């Protein structure tokens, strides 16, 4: 095929003109095929999201309800950049229309509101992380739930000696008594607890979770964590739970996340 249009328009002989017409038709068909392929590729992302039934992702604080969030997010990662504990990651192409959308893997690194809440929200240029939130207590990412009660150390009456998740765990947490401003490695923090209460002790939301006796017997050391309505689903309890896999986990909300949003 000619790359350069020729300058001189010589009248082409008849058979050549026919083949030029054929070439034009082929070009049109090729273009339609390529266009179709591109739309199909994008639609694959859509169907992947609609029908693959993948487990929902924990979204950063302030995220709109899932469908609105996916639409409103411009996939820039500014929320990733401001997070002091690097809790936020961007999803990749295999998550379909979720490609480039931020999520949190709470077990690996939960949002502990080290930033004094909602830096990611302030960084969001589109309001996908709702600008109507300005306190961590308004956030609704999910709700913590004791998913494996039998694994819970408190319910077994067991304590914790040493770091919560072992010496190799890379996660960070704000230990205010150590440093008000810089989150500290969880692995560097030694605990010495007769009865494990890490999910309650390290919860950044006051009154969101409490330890209650398992039985009425005062001699019984066993306790059980009880999650209250004010839980925001940040996942710190999930990150800190020494049981493997975690006994307490965040049940991710995909709707109802905007409940705490200040309407203006």
């Amino acid at each position, binding site marked *: 095929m000619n790359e350069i249009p020729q300058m001189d328009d010589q009248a082409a002989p008849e058979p050549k003109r026919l083949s030029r017409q054929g070439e034009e038709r082929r070009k049109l068909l090729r273009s339609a095929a390529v266009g179709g392929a591109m739309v199909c*590729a994008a639609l694959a992302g859509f169907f992947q999201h609609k029908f693959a039934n993948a487990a929902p992702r924990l979204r950063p604080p302030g995220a709109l309800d899932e469908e609105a969030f996916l639409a*409103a997010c411009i996939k820039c990662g500014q929320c990733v950049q401001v997070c002091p504990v690097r809790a936020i990651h961007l999803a990749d192409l295999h998550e379909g229309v979720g*490609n*480039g959308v931020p999520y949190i893997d709470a077990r690996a690194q939960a949002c502990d509101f080290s930033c004094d809440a909602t830096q990611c929200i302030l960084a969001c240029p589109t309001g996908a992380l709702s600008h109507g939130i300005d306190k961590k207590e308004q956030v609704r990412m999910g709700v913590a739930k004791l998913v494996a009660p039998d694994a819970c150390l408190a319910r077994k009456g067991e304590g914790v000696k040493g770091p919560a998740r072992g010496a190799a765990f890379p996660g960070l947490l704000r230990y205010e008594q150590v440093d008000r401003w810089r989150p500290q490695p969880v692995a560097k923090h030694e605990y010495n607890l007769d009865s494990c209460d890490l999910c309650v002790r390290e919860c950044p939301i006051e009154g969101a979770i409490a330890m209650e006796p398992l039985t009425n017997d005062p001699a019984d050391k066993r306790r059980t964590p009880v999650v209250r309505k004010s839980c925001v689903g940040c996942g710190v309890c999930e990150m800190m739970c020494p049981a493997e896999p975690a006994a307490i986990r965040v049940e991710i909300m995909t709707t109802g996340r905007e409940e705490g949003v200040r309407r203006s």
Partner: protein
Amino acid sequence: MKPGFLSRTLNGLAMLLGRQPTKPEPEEMTEDSRALHAFKKTPAERKRRKAAIAAERAEEGHSHKWRNRRWASIIAVNGVFVLSYWLDLQLVEGALTASRVFGFHFADLNSSLQLMLAHKHVVLNLVIGVTTVLALYLLFGGRSFCSWVCPYHLLSEIAEMLHLKLADKRLVKNHELDRRLRVALFVVFAALAFATGYTLFETISPVGIVSRALTYGTAVGLIWVLLLLLVEIFWSRRFWCRYVCPIGLTYGFAGVAAPVRILYDGTKCFHEGKCRQVCLVPHVLDMTKLGYAAEVRSPVGPDCTRCAMCLDACPTGALTFDIAGVTRRPPVEPPPLTPPPEGPQVGVGRAGAKTEPVA
């Protein structure tokens, strides 16, 4: 229509929308331009050009000055994104879809358009970001982004080099597509965003994918980018940028009358077509064919990415950067009534590139 700003702009818009360039009728040309064409078609002038071209071809090789500057620009801009994050410099945060530059919001026009259509709601920060970027594109020409910033463009240029090498050896053949495809895809993706409520184009946009992969290490998406590059190498030269990318179309509209542009000077041109050979969007250089320019000095249309490959390729300095109303040029001289004396040295060389660009 009379030659001038309006006819140029309308023609530029029509070509953005996929119209094939046409040769203007004599009444659509300026008097000077008609005279220049007539002069250039005189046998003596043809002969002089031929001799000059022969002399010029004796010393082969062409400059890569602009390409090198552009590559430096692409690497620098994307490098600042990456370093800002990894070294926590906080100069440019985000990705090419949206960012904060020294704290100021920037938002990509096409990403924002998709988002507004899908989400049907706009917040102030986004309006600020869009306005800032739109102002830049109105000034510099939207598609300047393509060749001076877009990281996919750089990858695609390398793929193009491979394609041309293989095509030279007749191992691959370029398959041209219809430029109206881009318009169709723009409409389809806009409609899909509105109808489904998802920014579907974002899912497959190699600009966002490469930009995020560089900064955040999301590497799975690069498989898709690699696939696109393979298509460009083996099947259709620069097919994404030429025929598919709706981003380029959005930017083209934004820069439809941008003062920063490339200017074609018909008096210096030998009509060798070297510029069209290297051009990503050769339809914008149709006026460089002998007898096609409506004006003696014609600005290149809005689909032009200001990549300046044509400046590098042009042996006569007929193409230069220009800022409307700022760059000073001597008035157009009427063609001489008698052709200059014959001689290969006349008019050869890289003269004429007097203006420095602001890009």
